[in-house]
């Protein structure tokens, strides 16, 4: 099961730098991470960061004339535990999935669901207006609606009339 999840994420998860305890291992890993973000052939979407290992929720981006919609699959969370921030054209979604508060029931036989923190930053196709961002959480899917900034819209029109 876990293998399937990783492949779905476009193979963006690299082999994590486990193994030796060389002090430079971590630094190398982080450096390669950063390089990979810029080398990504799509350029716009940052690969799932392996700095927070374990959970990398799947995300989709939809683009329309005036707005961008980003959906992230985050089942079983409370909306208070999800954080959405926009800086320039980078959207960051982070949060923590806590073990349900009810009495810890019995023993666990099989555990495939991820728990704990996650964080993903994604580069949007255009700049957006940070004052016009709306997010809703329904059926375990976080849906973030971002209006394109005036500048981004203007750029589109210029190209059309060229």
């Amino acid at each position, binding site marked *: 099961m876990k293998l399937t999840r990783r492949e*779905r994420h476009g193979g963006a998860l690299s082999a994590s730098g486990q193994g030796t305890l060389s002090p430079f291992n971590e630094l190398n890993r982080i450096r390669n991470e950063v390089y990979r973000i810029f080398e990504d052939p799509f350029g716009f979407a940052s690969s799932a960061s392996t700095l927070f290992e374990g959970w990398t929720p799947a995300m*989709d981006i939809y683009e329309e004339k005036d707005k961008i919609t980003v959906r992230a699959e985050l089942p079983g969370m409370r909306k208070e535990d999800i954080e959405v921030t926009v800086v320039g054209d980078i959207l960051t979604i982070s949060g923590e999935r806590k073990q349900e508060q009810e009495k810890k029931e019995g023993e666990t*036989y099989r555990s495939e669901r991820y728990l704990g923190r996650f964080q993903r930053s994604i580069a949007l196709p255009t700049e957006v207006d940070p004052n016009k961002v709306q997010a809703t959480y329904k059926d375990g899917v976080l849906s973030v609606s971002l209006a394109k900034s005036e500048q981004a819209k203007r750029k589109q029109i210029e190209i059309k009339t060229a």
Partner: protein
Amino acid sequence: MNNVAEQQNQTNQTVRPERQANRGFVAPPANISGTDNEYILEVEMPGVDKSGIEVTVEGNELTIIGRRRTETPAGELYYSEAPQADFRRAFELGPDVDTGKISAQMDQGILKLRLTKSEKSKPRKIQITG
């Protein structure tokens, strides 16, 4: 011991004829835990609400299907990681599950099933007399 074992989707296909689904299926991750009285199955199916769930028990096989009904946002799908498929997974139930008493609840994309263990399989203390 774990008596709620998973069946591969492939095995499922050879057991009975495939229903042609237009989108195909993907297997959702699940957590299985248990107490003396019941097994608890938590299946992650984001984008599925109560109306999209089908839970069926045939003999000792429990099948869970979740269909995504949430509307797709307008616009062009620019980048996609989530599978455009519905969810399906089958489990084989051991003899200690009372298939008549299964309860289900759905919250924020997580389906939680409670499978009651049958009376005779519960641990029973035996009194020593004499």
